[in-house]
Structure formats: C-alpha cells, structure tokens
C-alpha cells in the first residue's frame, strides 16, 4: 500500500516544491535559538554537556534539512526524534520526563517528519503547559501486520470538541492536521487521538508492514 502511494505522494511533494523548503519551514527558529542559548549556558558550567548538546543539535539540523524523501526508514525518523528529545531534556531538565519503549529490530517505512512533530506537540502543547511539566511516552511495537507507534503525555489534554477541531480544514496549519493528511495520502490510516482535559493525550499511528 505504501509503495503504491509513494509515487503519487512524491508527485504531490514536487508540485508543492518550494512551499515547505525554507529554513524557517523546516526548523523552528524559536527552538534553535533557545537550544543555542542552552549551549552558551552549558559552556561555562559543563563543557562536556555543551559538546554533547551541540552534537544533538547537529543531528537534529541534519535530519531537518536533509533532502526530503517522502518515506524514511523508522530508524532515520527515530534518529531525528531522539536528537529532538535529547535537546528538549537539556532545555527543560526535570520538567520533562521521557519514557521510551521501542521494540528491537522493528523495521518499516514512515512518511518523513511524522513522528517528530507529534512528539513536539506532546511536549510543547501537552506537558510544558503545566508548571510542573510531565511525562511523554513513546512506544513502538510490532503487531502481526503492522507497526504501532504511540505517543502519549500526561499534560493539559483537550476536550472532545478541541480534538474534533484538529482535523477541520480551518485548522490546516496545525501540525497534527498536516500529519493526518500525509498519512491518509500515503494510504495509511489517519491519526487516532484520545485526549482527556487535564489528564493528557495519546496519539497513535498504525503503519502496515
């Protein structure tokens, strides 16, 4: 299913060439500048941690700015996600707790920039909205005919009405709307979102494999 969709979607990407290719479209300047500020701070008190953070920022930028194929291996997407998570953990320290539950030797193709924005959403719009922060869990499991990716947080959550609005066309600039659209275009079932206000949100993708 994914292979059939690949040519169609690559064509879609070509038609939109230039639309999402600027630096600012690919990398949040707010995220980058805050990360660089953390490097400056760490250079004084913990140079080794500063060097490690520069490494994570480099990986994040390389993956964000790489020539973008429509489909990546799960490992490639995870490299991007883990660099992003490691940067955010340095920035927010104890306010951000991450739980990773990633099965061994799971291989599948995933549309590029699918998982990282979901994790970004869970961190920035879920747990960091709370003064005390919270936990973001990323789980990847192999099922008999698919790979199930789940990102959950115990942040501020949403009402049912807010969840419903996420996929309305009026919300087309929202990252979850865009991801849902890309998944569906690739013939993958769209995002499954469960959220409870003040308790948290779970976003699930199931990729045929």
């Amino acid at each position, binding site marked *: 299913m994914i292979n059939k969709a690949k040519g169609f979607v690559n064509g879609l990407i070509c038609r939109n060439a230039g639309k999402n290719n600027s630096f600012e479209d690919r990398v949040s*300047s*707010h*995220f*980058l*500048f*805050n990360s*660089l*500020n*953390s490097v*400056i*701070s*760490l250079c*004084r*008190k913990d140079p080794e941690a500063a060097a490690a953070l520069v490494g994570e920022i480099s990986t994040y930028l390389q993956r964000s700015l790489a020539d973008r194929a429509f489909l990546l291996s799960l490992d490639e997407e995870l490299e991007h996600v883990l660099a992003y998570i490691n940067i955010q953990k*340095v*920035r*927010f*320290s104890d*306010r951000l707790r991450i739980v990773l539950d990633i099965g061994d030797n799971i291989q599948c193709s995933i549309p590029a920039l699918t998982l990282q924005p979901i994790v970004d959403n869970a961190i920035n719009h879920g747990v*960091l*909205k*709370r*003064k005390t922060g919270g936990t973001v869990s990323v789980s990847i499991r192999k099922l008999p005919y698919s790979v199930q990716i789940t990102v959950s947080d115990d942040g501020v959550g949403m009402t049912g009405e807010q969840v419903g609005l996420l996929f309305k066309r009026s919300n087309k600039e929202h990252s979850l709307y865009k991801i849902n659209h890309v998944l569906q275009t690739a013939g993958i079932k769209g995002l499954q979102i469960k959220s409870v206000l003040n308790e948290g949100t779970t976003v699930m993708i199931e990729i045929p494999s």
Partner: protein
Amino acid sequence: MKKILIVDDEPNNRILLQEILEEVEQGGTMLLFAADGAEALDIIRAEKPDLVFLDLMLPERDGFEVCRWVKHQPGFESIFVAVLTARSQEADKQKAMDAKADMYITKPFKPSVIIDAVYKVFGTEDI
C-alpha cells in the same frame, strides 16, 4: 536595594543570566528568579523589582500577559521590562511593544546586551 527579576522556564537560561549578572549581584543587587508567569507576578507584587528580564513563552501566564499587567498596574508601571525571547519575528516584537515592553532582546544574545540593559536602568556608576 536594587532588584532584578529573571523570568524563564528553562533552567539553563536562568543560570546563564545569573552568571552574566554575577558582578552586578556582587555589587549589591538582588537577583530574583521565576520559572513561570504566575510566579513572576507573585514576585513582582511582593518585591517590586527595578528590572525584569522576561521570557515570552511561559507556562501559567505568558510573558505578554505579565508585561501588560506590570505596565497597566498603578505603582508598578515604572518597572523596566526587557523581553528576552527566541521569538525573532517582527510581529512578536510589535506585540511586545504593544504590551509596553521597554526593550526587546532576542536569543541567543551577547552578555554585553544584558549588561547594557542593566546600565540603562541603573546607570553605569551605580551598580
């Protein structure tokens, strides 16, 4: 005693400001810290600092809201608010200016920019 409040939800940014302002602190200025907008307002009400370095994206109440409160609250409006943010777009700067911020500093910044803000508020000989 002169007081400077540093408001940022990222610990590294608070530490960085503290290090940059180390000599100012040794000169007798009190440094205060807040990690969110609600805590910032509590400290502002209680301590009435002379200068606030204020991040914009904060939990609880954001920096715009904090700035508007300070600048519209009788007795507090003279507090110098230096917005310190990674939001570099002109629209963000305009929104901060509309909230009556006195200065807009974008991250990452040079230490001299922070010291200049302190000089602007306290004068060069008085710190």
